[in-house]
C-alpha cells in the first residue's frame, strides 16, 4: 500500500496558501447538493459541522451524548495556544511551530504543524467574535499565561474552564445551524460501524441509545471527530464514555491507524484513592506556573510537609531542568515523578504522589491572586481529597491523559479510505510523540474551523460519487453485522461485568504499555490481552435487552473494541525500538535516564493495517523529513 500524504512543496511558510489556492472549489449553489456526516460534536466536530453548514453543505451530526454541549472537550481546563504575540515576548508563528515540532520529539509532520501554528491566530479571533469570555486584563485586552514546553506566554484561557467556553462557542454556532435547518443533529446515537462503498466512505451504522434501533445513514463523505482512546487504560482523565469504537471500526474497514502507542501521561493528576476508583482527575498544568513540585530528599521521610525544612526538600524538576523547571514538558515531568516515587521518596498513601506546593506563590502574590487564577481547581481538589491546598501542598501523580496516535490522515485530513476525514484527537497528525499543553484545543478547532472547510471541498469537487442508499448491499450488511454483535454480547450469559474486564485490561496496559515499556513486558501483554478477550466472549454478562436504554450493553460494546485495539498499541510500542516523547522504552535511555531517540531507524510514522482479529497487523511507514527544524536531541535543561 502506498501512503500518499499529499504534502505540498515549496517554502513552508507558503505551503498552506498555495495548497488552498490549488484545491478545487465547490460552487455555492452546488454545496447544498452534497451531504456530509460528522460523527462527534466535541471541539473538532462541532466546529466542523457549524462551519460546513455555514458554507451550505447538508450536515448530519452524531453524538452519543444527550446534548452536543457535553463532549469530553468540555473538561479542558488550562487554555489554548495561539501565536498572537500579544505579550511582545518574542512569540511568532515560527516559534509556535518550532516548539510543537520539538515538543513532539520530532515525530510529527512539519507541514501540518506549520499550518496549525498559522491558523492558531484565527481561532482566537473567531472565538472572541462568538462571545467566548476569555480572561482579560484591566485595560480590556486579552490575557495570557504560559504552559509547559514554552518560554513565551501564548496561552489564552477562560478561568479554569477554557474547554467549556470554547466548546460552548462551537456548540452555539452548531445550534444556530440546527435552528436554521442546515444541520440535522442526532443525539444519543452511537456509531457502530463505517460503511464503505466502492472503496469510499459513504455512511455509518448507528445504534439509538434510547430505543436500541440500529440503522444506517448515507452521505457523500464521512468525518470522524470522535476523540481519543485514553480510556483503554480504564483509569484516565478522560470522560467515562470516551472510547475507541468509531476509529477502531473504521480501522477494521481499512483505515490505517497511526502511532497508536503514543499516549500522553499527564504529570499533575490527583492520585488514586482506592480500587473502586472510576476515573482520575486532572489538575491543570497551568498550576505549574505558580506551584513548585518537590519530594523529601530522603527515602521514608514521613513528616508532614510543613515539618520538612527547605534543606530536606528536593525540588527535582528545578534541579534537573533549570531552564524550564516546573514547566518542563509533560512526558519529562511525568517520568521524573515516577522516578522519585520508584526511589521510595513518593508521598501520600502507597507513596504514589509528589507535592505541588503553592506556599511560595501565596506568600509572593497573596491568597486572593492565587484564588483568582486557580480558585475552581483548588475547590475541586478539596472536594475530592478533603484537603485544603491553600494550607497543605497538593499531592499529584501522573495519569493517562491524551492520545497522540489516531487514524492516519494526509495533509487534507483524509484517511487512506477516500471520503473518510478525521479531525481532532481522533487523528494522529500534529503532535508527534508528545503534545504540548494547550495545543489540543488549538488543533481541534484548527481542524474544524479552518482546515476541513477547504479540504473537503477539494475532495467533493473531484466528483465521481455514485448515488448510494441504505438499501445497498454494503449498508445492509453493516447493519446486520452490528445487530449480530449486539445479540452475541447479550446471549453470552456469563458471570463478569463489562467493567470488570475493562479494569483488568486497563491494569495490563498501565503496567506493560504505560509510562515506561520494555520488550518482555509488551510481549507478555500481547499474550494476556488475547486471553482476556477470549474470556470476555465466554464469560461476559450483559443484563437486559438490546431494544431499550441499556448502559451495560453500551459499555460491553466499547470494551469489546478496546480488547482488540489494546493489542495494536502493544504491537506498535514493541516495534518502536527507541524512546521518544510519551513512548519510553526502558532499553533505550541515556546514562542519566533521558529518552534515547533513534532517528536513523525510527524517524517515521507507523501506520498499521488491520489483517483480522488476533493476527499481526501490517506496518506501513511514512518517512518524516525535517527541513526547517533541525533534528536534535530535545533538551530542557
Amino acid at each position, binding site marked *: 500500500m502506498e501512503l500518499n500524504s499529499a504534502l505540498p512543496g515549496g517554502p513552508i511558510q507558503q505551503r498552506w496558501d498555495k495548497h488552498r489556492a490549488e484545491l478545487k472549489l465547490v460552487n455555492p449553489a452546488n454545496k447544498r447538493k452534497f451531504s456530509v456526516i460528522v460523527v462527534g460534536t466535541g471541539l473538532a466536530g462541532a466546529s466542523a459541522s457549524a*462551519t460546513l453548514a455555514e458554507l451550505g453543505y447538508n450536515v448530519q451530526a452524531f453524538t452519543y451524548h444527550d446534548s452536543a454541549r*457535553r463532549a469530553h472537550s468540555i473538561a479542558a481546563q488550562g487554555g489554548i495556544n495561539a501565536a498572537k504575540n500579544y505579550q511582545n515576548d518574542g512569540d511568532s508563528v515560527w516559534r509556535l511551530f518550532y516548539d510543537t515540532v520539538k515538543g513532539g520529539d520530532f515525530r510529527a509532520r512539519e507541514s501540518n504543524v506549520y499550518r496549525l501554528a498559522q491558523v492558531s491566530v484565527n481561532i482566537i479571533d473567531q472565538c472572541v467574535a462568538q462571545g467566548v469570555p*476569555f480572561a482579560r486584563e484591566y485595560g480590556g485586552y486579552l490575557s495570557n499565561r504560559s504552559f509547559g514546553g514554552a518560554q513565551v506566554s501564548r496561552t489564552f484561557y477562560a478561568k479554569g474552564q477554557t474547554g467549556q467556553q470554547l466548546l460552548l462557542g462551537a456548540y452555539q454556532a452548531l445550534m444556530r445551524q440546527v435552528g436554521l435547518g442546515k444541520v440535522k443533529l442526532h443525539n444519543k446515537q452511537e456509531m457502530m460501524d463505517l460503511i464503505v462503498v466502492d472503496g469510499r466512505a459513504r455512511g455509518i451504522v448507528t445504534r439509538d441509545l434510547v430505543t436500541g434501533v440500529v440503522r444506517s445513514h448515507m452521505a457523500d463523505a464521512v468525518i470522524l471527530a470522535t476523540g481519543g482512546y485514553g480510556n483503554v487504560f480504564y483509569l484516565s482523565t478522560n470522560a467515562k464514555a470516551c472510547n475507541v469504537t468509531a476509529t477502531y471500526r473504521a480501522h477494521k474497514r481499512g483505515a490505517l491507524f497511526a502511532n497508536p502507542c503514543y499516549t500522553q501521561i499527564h504529570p499533575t493528576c490527583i492520585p488514586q484513592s482506592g480500587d473502586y476508583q472510576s476515573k482520575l482527575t486532572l489538575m491543570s498544568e497551568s498550576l505549574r506556573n505558580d506551584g513548585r513540585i518537590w519530594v523529601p530528599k530522603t527515602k521514608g521521610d514521613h513528616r508532614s510537609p510543613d515539618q520538612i525544612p527547605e534543606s530536606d526538600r528536593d525540588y527535582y524538576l528545578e534541579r534537573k531542568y533549570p531552564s524550564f523547571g516546573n514547566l518542563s514538558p509533560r512526558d519529562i515531568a511525568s517520568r521524573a515523578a515516577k522516578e522519585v516515587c520508584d526511589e521510595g521518596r513518593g508521598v501520600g498513601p502507597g507513596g504514589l504522589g509528589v507535592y505541588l506546593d503553592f506556599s511560595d506563590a501565596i506568600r509572593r502574590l497573596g491568597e486572593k491572586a492565587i484564588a483568582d487564577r486557580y480558585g475552581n481547581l483548588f475547590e475541586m481538589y478539596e472536594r*475530592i481529597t478533603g484537603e485544603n491546598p491553600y494550607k497543605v501542598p497538593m499531592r499529584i501523580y501522573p495519569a493517562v491523559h491524551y492520545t497522540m496516535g489516531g487514524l492516519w490522515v494526509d495533509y487534507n485530513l483524509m484517511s487512506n479510505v477516500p471520503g473518510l476525514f478525521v479531525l481532532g484527537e481522533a487523528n494522529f497528525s500534529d503532535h508527534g510523540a508528545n503534545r504540548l499543553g494547550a495545543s489540543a484545543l488549538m488543533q481541534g478547532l484548527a481542524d474544524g474551523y*479552518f482546515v476541513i472547510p477547504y479540504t473537503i471541498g477539494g475532495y467533493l469537487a473531484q466528483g465521481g460519487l455514485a448515488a448510494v442508499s441504505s438499501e445497498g448491499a454494503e449498508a445492509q450488511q453493516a447493519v446486520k453485522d452490528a445487530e449480530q454483535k449486539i445479540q452475541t454480547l447479550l446471549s453470552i450469559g456469563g458471570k463478569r461485568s463489562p467493567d470488570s474486564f475493562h479494569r483488568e485490561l486497563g491494569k495490563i496496559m498501565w503496567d506493560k504499555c504505560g509510562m515506561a515499556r520494555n520488550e518482555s513486558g509488551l510481549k507478555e501483554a500481547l499474550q494476556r490481552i488475547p486471553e482476556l478477550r477470549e474470556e470476555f466472549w465466554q464469560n461476559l454478562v450483559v443484563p437486559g435487552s438490546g431494544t431499550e436504554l441499556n448502559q451495560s450493553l453500551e459499555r460491553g460494546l466499547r470494551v469489546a473494541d478496546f480488547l482488540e485495539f489494546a493489542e495494536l498499541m502493544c504491537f506498535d510500542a514493541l516495534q518502536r525500538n527507541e524512546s521518544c516523547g510519551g513512548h519510553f522504552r526502558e532499553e533505550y535511555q541515556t546514562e542519566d535516564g533521558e529518552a534515547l531517540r533513534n532517528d536513523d531507524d525510527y524517524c517515521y510514522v507507523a501506520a498499521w493495517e488491520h489483517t483480522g482479529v488476533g493476527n499481526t497487523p501490517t506496518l506501513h511507514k511514512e518517512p518524516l523529513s525535517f527541513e526547517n527544524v533541525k533534528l536534535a536531541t530535545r533538551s530542557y535543561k
Partner: protein
Amino acid sequence: MNLRLHIWRQAGPNDTGMLKTYDLANVSEHMSFLEMLDVLNEELIAKGEIPVAFDHDCREGICGTCGMVINGRPHGPLARTTACQLHMRTFKDGDEIYIEPWRAKAFPVLRDLVVDRGSFDRIIQKGGFVSVNTGNAQDGNTIPIGKPDADRAMDAAACIGCGACVAACPNSSAMLFTAAKIGHLASLPQGQAERSSRAMNMVLQMDTEGFGACTNHYECEAACPKGISAEFIAQMNRDFVASALGGKG
C-alpha cells in the same frame, strides 16, 4: 459505612416507576457518590438484576451530564457541588439516602434516573449564540472588554446545563438556565446586535417547552452547582420587556 438506598426505578418512559430499597455495605468515605452507585450496580449485575441507569460522563463537575435528586435536593446536600463531585464523607454510617430523577414536565424520564433534557438545546437554538460565520472575525484585541464585564460574562457562561435549577423550582421553571445564556451574551459587546430578539425568542421557546413561570422562590440559585446568580433573571426580564415594547422578536 453501611447505607440504605431508596432509588427510583422506572423501566421506560411509559412505565409508572417506584422507589426500591437496596442495602449497601462497606462504602468507603473516599468514594464519590457515583462510585458508590457503580459498586451497587456491580453487585446488582452479579446477582443477575438490572443495574440502575444514571447519566454521567466527566465526573469532574463540568459536563452537566449527571443529575439526580439526593435526599430531596438536586445534586445532594453540598452547596455548589454536582452529584459526581459529592463524596461519601458527606454521609455517615447507617444513613438512608433517597435518590430520584429530575422531575419536570419538560424533562421526561427515559429510564431510572436518566431524563431527556433536549428542551434545553431547543432553547439555545432560538438565539443562544452570536450570529457570526467562521472567517468573519477581526483581531481579538480590537474589541477591548473591561475586566468586570468579561468576568460577569464568564460568571453567567459557567452554566453547565445540568437542569438542577429546573428540578429545584416548585414551578419547574428554566429561568436561570435561560437567563444565564442571555446574561452571558448581554454582558459583552459581541452580544448586543441580537440582544433584544435573543431574549424574546429564547423566553418564548422556554414557554413552548412546558417549563413553568418564575414566582421568585430562588430555589434555582441555591441548587445551582455553579452558583449562577438569580440577578441574571432580573436582567433577562428587563431585556424581554424591552423587546416586547420595542415590538421586535
